[in-house]
């Protein structure tokens, strides 16, 4: 590496840039940083585009890192003064005005990693204080806009919850299929491999090769309520669903408030920020009222035959508080229940110990669900992962108890 004064400064800058990216969640070690330096010195600093792609080639190795890198690059290398201030590290107030110039453009994650890098440790500590692992979850309170801006989730809130969600390995629950796989101890004989094996041994003996029924997980269909009362939980659910959608195939997600929206395709995007962005563009009834009956009707009419065909597991995430006070709900729940392998109702209201299933919507829905579970904190999400994974057996008695109380 050249040691002239110019490139020395560049090296320091690149180092800070790499540290910014690392703080924003890109897995970049010192080796990759050296690669980046080598790439930049090889390509040269002829044009900004060359510089961008040299760093890009060295630092990004997955499609979902593209957006993070792109934004970080444009903020970080925007103007030289910015870089000077970056290097001096002693200007705790720098981030605010720089970032407010164009707040929509930034992912909050990048913004916070940059300011956190500049600010001293105290700042980080105050931020950490805000993380609460209690029943109310950790979303900032100043989000009351009708058209929700997901960007306002801060990096700390996301990272705390998301780290937990990402570490939830969702065990694949399986059901037997009609296909066979070879297995040493199997129930039926696989003639094709048996004959081949017999030839290999000179046809004197015929070693029986066996096979068993293959297994695969059933499709999962999620219907998630995004009305005002469900807002915070729906957001957390979206993170969970993003992890789940990217972890396995055949996960379909629908959001409903006053109308039903299919967001499966958006959740397939590897980067959670891009997913949430697109969803906030497409979903118009965020944090409004709920019309569970009519939304379920739409689902049954237009989607159930398309996504429930293969014996799907249905997760219904709603508090059951219906603007239409349960009108037409019973019939639609009945239909939904009959078309699905298992219908699991996740209700955040269960966080209250004294919760009684007395509202009309809840009473209309209760007879038709196979399981009734809370969904209000990370713990209940973990529980859900177990249920979806099939390792947790549902207790018939507790379900019967709920149904009795709702009757």
């Amino acid at each position: 590496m050249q040691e002239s004064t110019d490139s020395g400064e560049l090296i320091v800058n690149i180092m800070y840039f790499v540290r910014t990216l690392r703080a924003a969640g890109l897995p970049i070690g010192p080796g990759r940083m050296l690669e980046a330096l080598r790439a930049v010195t090889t390509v040269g600093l002829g044009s900004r585009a060359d510089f961008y792609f040299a760093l890009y080639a060295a630092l990004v190795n997955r499609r979902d890192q593209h957006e993070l890198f792109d934004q970080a690059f444009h903020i970080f290398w925007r103007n030289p003064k910015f870089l000077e201030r970056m290097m001096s590290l002693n200007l705790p107030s720098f981030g605010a005005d720089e970032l407010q110039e164009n707040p929509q453009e930034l992912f909050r994650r990048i913004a916070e990693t940059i300011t956190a890098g500049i600010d001293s440790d105290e700042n980080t500590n105050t931020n950490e204080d805000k993380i609460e692992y209690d029943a109310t979850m950790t979303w900032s309170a100043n989000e009351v806009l009708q058209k929700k801006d997901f960007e306002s989730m801060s990096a700390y809130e996301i990272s705390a919850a998301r780290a937990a969600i990402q570490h939830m390995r969702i065990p694949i629950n399986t059901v037997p299929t009609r296909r066979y796989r070879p297995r040493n101890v199997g129930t039926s004989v696989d003639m094709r491999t048996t004959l081949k094996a017999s030839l290999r041994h000179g046809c004197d003996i015929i070693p029986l090769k066996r096979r068993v029924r293959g297994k695969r997980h059933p499709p999962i269909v999620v219907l998630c309520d995004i009305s005002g009362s469900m807002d915070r939980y729906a957001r957390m659910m979206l993170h969970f669903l993003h992890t789940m959608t990217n972890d396995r195939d055949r996960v379909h997600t629908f959001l409903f408030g006053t109308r039903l929206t299919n967001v499966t395709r958006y959740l397939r995007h590897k980067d959670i920020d891009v997913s949430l962005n697109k969803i906030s563009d497409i979903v118009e009834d965020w944090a409004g009222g709920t019309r569970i009956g009519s939304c379920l009707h739409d689902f049954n009419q237009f989607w159930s035959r398309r996504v429930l065909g293969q014996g799907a597991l249905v997760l219904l995430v709603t508090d059951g508080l219906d603007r239409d006070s349960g009108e037409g709900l019973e019939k639609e729940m009945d239909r939904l229940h009959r078309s699905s392998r298992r219908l699991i109702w996740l209700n955040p209201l269960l966080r209250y110990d004294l919760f009684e299933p007395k509202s009309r919507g809840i009473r209309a829905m209760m007879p038709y669900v196979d399981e009734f579970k809370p969904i209000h904190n990370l713990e209940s999400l973990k529980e859900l992962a177990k249920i979806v994974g099939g390792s947790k057996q549902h207790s018939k008695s507790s379900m019967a108890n709920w149904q009795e109380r709702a009757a």
Partner: protein
Amino acid sequence: MTSPIPKSVDETFELLLNGSYVADRSLATALYLSLSLSRPLFVEGEAGVGKTEIAKVLAQTLNRKLLRLQCYEGLDVSSAVYEWNYTRQMVEIRLSEAAGNRNLGDLEKDIFSEKFLIKRPLLQALEPSRDGPPVLLIDELDRTDEPFEAYLLEILSEFQITIPEVGTVSATEPPIVIITSNRTREIHDALKRRCYYHWIDYPNAARELEILSVKAPEVSSTLSRQVVGFVQSLRDTDLFKFPGIAETIDWAHALVQLNCLALDPEIINNTLGALLKYQDDITKIQGSEAGRILNEVKLELATHEA
């Protein structure tokens, strides 16, 4: 005798009509493209709108063999493409043993030869035939799983199948492929990309009347107009499953069987099971609702005639 494939959209339309299939212009166009450019036709639509019928009519009017592959969950290579005849293979092994033939290489080559191959529809479709390439109907593809769909990719784009023991079998002339789906799940884009796509919708009143006159000529014109009017109004109501064309034809046949010359509320109530297949839907329509719709239909037909 094999008939030539049609040379224009109009000819395609006529061809289908000869097989008593009343198509609309868009279907005839899609089918013509698929026939002339040798690409599969992927047909989607609700149950009972005549998807499978297209392939049957094509085979009949073009005088080709119809090979039908009914898809179901767990459909695998051994029932869709080929299977080795194990019993014969074992007999062959014993025979060669008795004859004292111990050359294993020859034996292996022998028992995995075409003689012992049981051909299933997909492999049969690639074979040259005296009547020209057959019509291959892959019915209700959405019933199988994704791995089978992936297996079809090679066949549909290259018209060839690879059998590990034998080698690659490719068609000299590509078969006419019709794929149908009921949309109980989404078919992958990679497969759709290789086909022409056509969505068959419920027909409008005029076309449904035409279909009924072709498929059920014994129904009087008054009755068939009433039947079509009634079914068309049913499709405007809020039902879980709308009646398809197949149901309309069934119902018309049923009414003729009951010597009914014109619709009345009672006969509708008694025969509603031919038209609607969900209990909820039947209870919704039965009784006063059926009477109301019938009156509307009669009124409309009267004003139409006047």
